């Protein structure tokens, strides 16, 4: 009985592994990382717009997420991941990898700096989001392609 349960669990785990294979591809990983950054920006925006009350812990956690995520983000663009899985990555990334990495690093640095100062109220969060948003768009301007 125990063995059967174990085998079942192993089989299910095997299924699980098959299911996440696509999610392990660099295209999918980096999409997930961008979603994480987006979610953190969304949390900050809720505060900046006054839809959510100011909460220092949420501001701290969001800025930490952004700063840590963009540190690893540019490592997920290996050769061979230029296309597929509905990637919106522009071929220009591979032509100008150093500039692409510099743009990601700028967002990371700006997020870390803001984290060290920690915006103290709704207006501070709004100003912080203005700085971070400019970093997002300055990279997306050149390195992201919309397919629709």
């Amino acid at each position, binding site marked *: 009985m125990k063995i059967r349960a174990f085998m079942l669990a192993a089989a299910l785990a095997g299924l699980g592994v098959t299911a996440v294979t696509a999610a392990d591809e660099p295209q999918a990983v980096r999409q997930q990382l961008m979603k994480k950054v987006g979610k953190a*920006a969304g949390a900050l*925006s809720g505060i900046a717009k006054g839809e959510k009350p100011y909460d220092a812990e949420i501001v701290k956690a969001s800025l930490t997420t952004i700063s840590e995520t963009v540190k690893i983000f540019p490592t997920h663009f290996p050769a061979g991941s230029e296309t597929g899985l509905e990637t919106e990555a*522009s071929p220009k990334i591979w032509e100008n990898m150093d500039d692409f990495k510099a743009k990601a690093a700028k967002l990371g640095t700006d997020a870390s700096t803001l984290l060290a100062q920690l915006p103290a109220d709704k207006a501070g969060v709004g100003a912080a989001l203005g700085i971070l948003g400019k970093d997002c*768009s300055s990279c997306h301007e050149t390195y*992201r392609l*919309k397919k*629709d």
Partner: protein
Amino acid sequence: MGRRTTKLLSGLVVLALAGAGGSWWLTKPAPWDDGHWEGLGEPDLANGEQVFWAGGCVSCHAAPGAQDDARLVLSGGRALKSAFGTFHVPNISPDESAGIGDWTLAEFGNAMTRGVGQNGEHLYPSFPYGSYARMTAKDINDLWGYLQTLPKSTNVAPPHDLPFPYNIRLALGGWKLLFFSDEPRVEVNTADAKLARGQYLVEGPGHCGECHTPRNALGGFETGRWLAGAPNPEGEGRIPNITPGSKSVGSWSASDIASYLETGFTPDFDSVGGSMVDVQKNLARLSPPDREAIAAYLKALPPL
């Protein structure tokens, strides 16, 4: 060559000349009567500045890569690649020789709304006069006044680099005959002041359709596909459909759209990208009611 052939040939030449004369008359540059630009009074510079940001002049006329206040120097110099060749954006700073400082209001207005240059020549529609044609004489006067307040630049842009037959300016008269119109692009309920304002901003100064509407082989808009998305004129990727039928932005509410134009964030906190980055920076300078009017108009479009 036989006598007959010679006769036939001269006949053809006469016919061709007559045809050319007729087409010249049909397709010659057509500026407004002088009265259109008279009696407008002192320009309202604050409104001129708003028109300036709505029109997005800096996106093409600022020096390539210029940031912040440097964008207000309209030195030109940017190269616009297209299927018809490369257009070099001219200097429109108030410099008297390199820019347009020696132009009159009428000359500026006719360039903006009729695509007619200072010497009476046709302008290429890479300059979006096909949209600006809808602008009021008052807005043109105010914009002209505002442009005089900007810094001068002595930069001279190279001439356009266009292969035959696109290098023949006369042929642009035919293009205008086929595609130039100052009529509304779609019908919306203009009794609603907000929609009317949105229509003016989007179809006129905002010139959104220039990128968001697909074009035919001659560069005219595909009828019935207003703002339905198009290939990216600058290379790979697509300029999105922004009608309510869009897969990407169709589900956005009017306030989502207004907020995107103000902050650059989409409702799911993706950010603005591509050439829309510059456009969003410009539209962020408009008044909140103007951004709301743009959003209301986009929501009222036929879904495609």
